[in-house]
């Protein structure tokens, strides 16, 4: 079989990574159908990282960070962007070689470029999770976060998952030599209807930024937070970790929106983060019970 062609546009970057990680034995999942801050929040990572069962998955996750919105005016900051995530549990001994293979697949020639692994320990206060790893630099630019999970939900993992997270927009800007995300070719430039990233998402960035910063109903969001928190706790009690965890995701996103609206003070902020962490912890503990039972 001839080597697959290098990706020419944003969607081909995604397709190439999907095919590559499918070949590595990952299940290719679709995005989680809820608003979340990062691909790590997907149950395929947070919950699956716990328990004695091996797991391999790869997926794109639209990630929402309301306070990063810039009304479409900043060339590389977005309140909605894509992460591509691969998770391999337990981490195979050659996981780094496999990852470097993915760079070759998307057209980064490691003989031409300077690839380096620079210490970067990862921690998510809201998920009570941490791991050690690197940010991967290509000619000085961070193109990937690589983490060996050590704890999730405050629980030490049984098998260590290797988590590989590509920031797709940034990577694409590098590959396709664009100064602004909005000029990225979403499909091929020689398509019948060529579309840029801006064609697809600029209006969304403008409107969502206005919503995040100006219009989100804060009273309603406080209510949503409290409701989700209550529902989550109730579902944990009923030993239903998956629906409980969805409520935890909801609470987390409500908190992010409230934070963007600037209605949470510095001191309150910490207590909200702790409340979400408590939910995540409870969900993880409940999940672990189901996994150990099944094993």
């Amino acid at each position: 079989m001839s080597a697959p062609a290098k990706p020419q546009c944003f969607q081909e970057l995604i397709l190439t990574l999907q095919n590559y990680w499918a070949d590595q034995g990952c299940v290719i999942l679709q995005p989680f159908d809820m608003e979340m801050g990062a691909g790590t929040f997907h149950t395929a990572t947070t919950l699956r990282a716990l328990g004695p069962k091996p797991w391999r998955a790869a997926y794109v996750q639209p990630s929402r960070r309301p306070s990063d919105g810039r009304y479409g005016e900043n060339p590389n900051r977005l309140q909605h962007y894509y992460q591509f995530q691969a998770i391999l549990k337990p981490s195979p001994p050659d996981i780094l070689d496999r990852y470097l293979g993915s760079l070759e697949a998307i057209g980064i020639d490691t003989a031409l470029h300077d690839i380096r692994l620079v210490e970067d320990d990862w921690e998510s206060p809201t998920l009570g999770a941490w791991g050690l790893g690197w940010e991967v630099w290509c000619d000085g630019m961070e193109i990937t976060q690589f983490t060996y999970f050590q704890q999730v939900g405050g629980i030490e993992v049984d098998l260590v998952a290797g988590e590989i997270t590509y920031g797709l927009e940034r990577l694409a800007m590098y590959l396709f030599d664009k100064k602004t995300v909005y000029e990225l070719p979403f499909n091929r430039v020689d398509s019948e209807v060529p579309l840029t990233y801006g064609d697809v998402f600029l209006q969304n960035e403008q409107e969502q930024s206005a919503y995040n910063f100006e219009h989100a109903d804060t009273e309603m969001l406080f209510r949503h937070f409290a409701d989700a928190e209550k529902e989550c706790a109730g579902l944990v009690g009923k030993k239903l970790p998956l629906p409980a965890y969805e409520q935890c995701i909801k609470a987390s996103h409500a908190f992010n929106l409230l934070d963007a609206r600037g209605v949470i003070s510095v001191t309150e902020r910490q207590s909200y983060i702790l409340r979400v962490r408590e939910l995540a912890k409870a969900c993880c503990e409940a999940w672990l019970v189901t996994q150990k039972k099944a094993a």
Partner: protein
Amino acid sequence: MAELLLELLSEEIPARMQARASDDLKRLVCDGLKAAGLAFAGARAFATPRRLALVVDGLAAAREDVSEEKRGPRVGAPDQAIQGFLKAAGLSSLDQAEKRDTGKGEFWFAVVTKKGGPTAAALPAIIDGAMKSLPWPKSMKWGSGTMQWVRPLQSIVALFDGKVLVGEIAPGGAMKPIAFGDLTRGHRFLSKGEIRVTGFADYAAKLKAAHVIVDAADRKKIILEGAEKLCADAQVTLKADDGLLDEVAGLVEWPVPMLGTIDAAFMDVPPEVLIVSMKTHQRYFATTTADGALANRFVVVANTAGCDGGAAIVDGNERVLRARLSDAKFFWDQDRKVRLEDRLPALKDIVFHAKLGTQAERVGRIAKLAVEIAGHVPGADLGLVEQAALLCKADLVTGMVGEFPELQGIIGRYYALSEELPVSVADAIGDHYTPAGPNDRCPSAPVSIAVALADKLDALASFWSIGEKPTGSRDPFALRRAALGIIRIVVENRIRLPLQKFFKAEDLLAFFAERLKVQMREKGVRHDVVDAVLALGHEDDLVRLLARVEALQVFLGSEAGRNLLTGYGRAANIVRAEEKKDKALAAKIAGTPDTALLEQVEEKDVALALADVERGLAPALAAEDFAGAMAAFAGLRGPIDAFFDKVTVNVAGSPELRLNRLKLLNQIRATMDAVADFSKIEG
């Protein structure tokens, strides 16, 4: 004599941990060798981003039997003690032990012989032990394993005398053990396949051929020489940065310095911003022009030369820097649209500390304090001091400081200058966090001094008021640094500041005294001399305090001083001893003795000398001429010596006379203690 070669290959080790880890490996293996009775000539350790390597030279191929004696309990001791002894010595019964008379009775002795044998047989356990106790600052497990290492461990080279040692490290779980071998790998990208090595010389040479420079010192040399040559060719000068050099040498196995260019569009952004952005985010070296200004070239150290000669790498790094600096330039342009003064309301939304209110409240306190302090700082214009103090934290709400927190103050100064505020105000904003350490610059301009002192005094007083005092190694709010900063500013600028006026808490002054003592000790001042002055209790003017310390130190260094100290000691000892017997004595012997009751000529001489000293002392103290005050004391020495030769203090049968003489001795003590508490001086 033979060589031990050890290499632990892993995934990328954080740069900051490498040097320490290779040292630890050397120490632990050497300790293990010594404990096993294995002598060696020397050991060298190396680290690269992917490996720790150790070579031990001059090890014997075999070691002799070593016999060791262990003394046990007394013969006839309880059975429990005997059993414990047998167990510890590895004996099955007392038949294997011997009785020996030590002169203090008969004891059991065990002679334990450690069998010698080939060194190679002892080494695996030593390596295993060293790896298990190597203290990584942060370690992790991987795969299904349980072993902790800094990052996943991949292979181990363990050769003794050119032969592979028999051993392995088991990461645990379902993972295959990592057997000791003679195979390693070269550069991650510039070398393919495994490399067989036979010893250290072979190892270093083959790795070099495989694009790995094993010794960090060699990598640093390559970086520095290469960077300096690039700079010379471009007619710029490399900005030396040892910390950055250490870090960069830990990020590459095959260093290749390359020269990049900063886009001209960014050269009007403050140089501090460019430097921080290049250094902390990108690990680039900055360069300067002939006149010392920041040049538009930077040095990046790649881990490969690049198959196109590095053009793509330089181009990529320039693009990344452009993106980073566009952010910085955006902030620089945007931030200057809002005056610092107009940013002040936003400080109300920033909590300084939950119990200490907002930054706006803190600024209010600093401004009030700064104006009070300014009264003690010659040449400080009150209006300018207040203006600078009110604006000193305004840059905390700028985009630039949000992005580069380490530039707080410095950025405020630039914005103040671009608003054309008075230069002294701008400088005070820029200086007010200094000095941040013993080697940091210390403010010297009057307005800067007042604001910098206020910033630190407020921090100390505020955290003290809520009970957040530093304890042991815990000092989360850097209060020790604040106190040392105050000491430096006050002393170096000779500011006459009555500290007591600004501190309500008693123990805060004590905390200061403690900092001062530490600082003086580092400068070689006797701690008891500092204690003697501090014991005065009322001395809160650091300049005067140090003048006292200095004069006292000089005085005590002279023969007259030492002799007088002896006289003082005798006087004080007698009074103290009598005071112990009679609790009411202290009140009875206060004040000057009754001249009518002075009988002997030696008594009268002491009284006269004391009167002389006191006459001279008051003006000397008022003029802060402590050397003069000390010199006045010198006249006391002769009369006091004569007094102790001829006069009996506790004279029998005459309580009045006794009391008067104690009064005289007490007066010697009181007079001298006006300058410093001489009782604190150690012999």
